[in-house]
């Protein structure tokens, strides 16, 4: 297998996971990942060799996602019904408290900058420094956004209501 594929392909599962979490639609998510990979291949010769490849790919993907939002003129993508099916719903388990469906509704209610920080750090296991690079913000801003994201998710889980959070449209 060629070198580019060997380097990039291990990152594709994470890129797809992040895309689904952002878009909540499987086809649209894979379209986004495909756009990301096409951009990456086109820009490959200009890539900084010392930079982190994963952070670079996630940066491209998030920028494309934001560009797509601006084009469509809306900030909160609606959850497609199909994406919820792939997420096991444990709402029937009393110990689980809110079902995952609701947890994702809480995630969707976050402003995009907070949602991305939370996803990159908590789900993608990115270091705070790499998340800062992807989001192009200082490390301190990563920490404060992460705080706000967790605070909102916590209050959402406690109250179980989206209505208490202002949904960003």
């Amino acid at each position: 297998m060629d070198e580019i594929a060997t380097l990039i392909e291990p990152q594709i599962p994470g890129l797809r996971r992040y895309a689904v979490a952002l878009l909540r639609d499987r086809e649209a998510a894979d379209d986004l990942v495909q756009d990301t990979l096409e951009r990456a291949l086109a820009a490959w010769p200009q890539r900084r060799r010392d930079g982190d490849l994963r952070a670079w790919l996630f940066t491209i993907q998030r920028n494309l996602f934001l560009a797509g939002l601006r084009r469509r003129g809306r900030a909160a993508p609606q959850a497609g019904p199909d994406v919820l099916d792939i997420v096991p719903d444990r709402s029937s388990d009393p110990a689980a408290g809110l079902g995952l469906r609701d947890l994702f509704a809480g995630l969707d209610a976050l402003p995009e900058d907070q949602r991305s920080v939370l996803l990159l750090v908590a789900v993608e296991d990115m270091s705070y420094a790499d998340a800062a690079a992807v989001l192009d913000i200082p490390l301190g801003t990563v920490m404060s956004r992460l705080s706000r994201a967790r605070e909102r998710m916590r209050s959402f889980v406690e109250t179980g209501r989206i209505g208490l959070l202002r949904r960003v449209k």
Partner: protein
Amino acid sequence: MSGPDPRPVGEDDLHALIDERLDPQRRSLVEAWLAERPEQAARVAADRETRLRLRAGLDPIAREPIPARLRIANLQRRRQTSIWRPVAAAAVLCLALGGIGGWVTARGLGPAPVVSTMLSEPATQDAVAAFRTFVVEAAHPVEVRANEMPHLVSWLSQRLGRQLVAPDLRGLGLRLMGGRLLPAGSEQAALLMYDDDRGTRLTLYSRVGTAEGRTVFRFAREGDVAAFSWVDGGMAYVVTARTDEARLLAVAESVDAQVRGLPAPKGTTQERP
């Protein structure tokens, strides 16, 4: 590291604890700090649980195999025809808007595949509906069987008013089963069915189109059914199957070459370097 970290516990420590990014020494210090502060500890516990449930919920996606269309080798192959992409996008848009006027890309070059999730093109909708109706048919999947090949081709050609070709897809492991005639508005459409050794069935739907010229391959998916459609020489073509995109694209390329009287591309796209 020598000696305990003397810095007091901060909020960044709490996040790092939740995200499992603290070294063991700092971690026990932060945990000891939390043990005396039940309110803070409860917050951390709640954040931790949210994190774990988000991960568990999203993790199945990262464990899925990589779809064919996201394989770097496939993307690189498509990039070689990427100069056609702007034309391709325009052609898709034009077709989606009702197919007024065709967009001619250079003849002799295969159309660049364009991935689209739209099932908006009527020929594709009809082709997928026909696929769903007839591939499940055990007794009468086709009206005319392939052993009556000359009759099959001349009959369908006569009804459509165009000379049709029944592409040979044996190089791709697909045998022609036969075909049937379908209504398509005021016109007719021809449906050819193929199958492979594992019983996977594939259909080639063709009908006289309103658009002249030549469009790119358009990909569409409806549930587990995938389709590539294109227009060439006043005909609309749709290949449909429950298979991966790479294999279906190889079929589309082979069909396209054969209906234009060109030699079929050798092998499948997956076997190409």
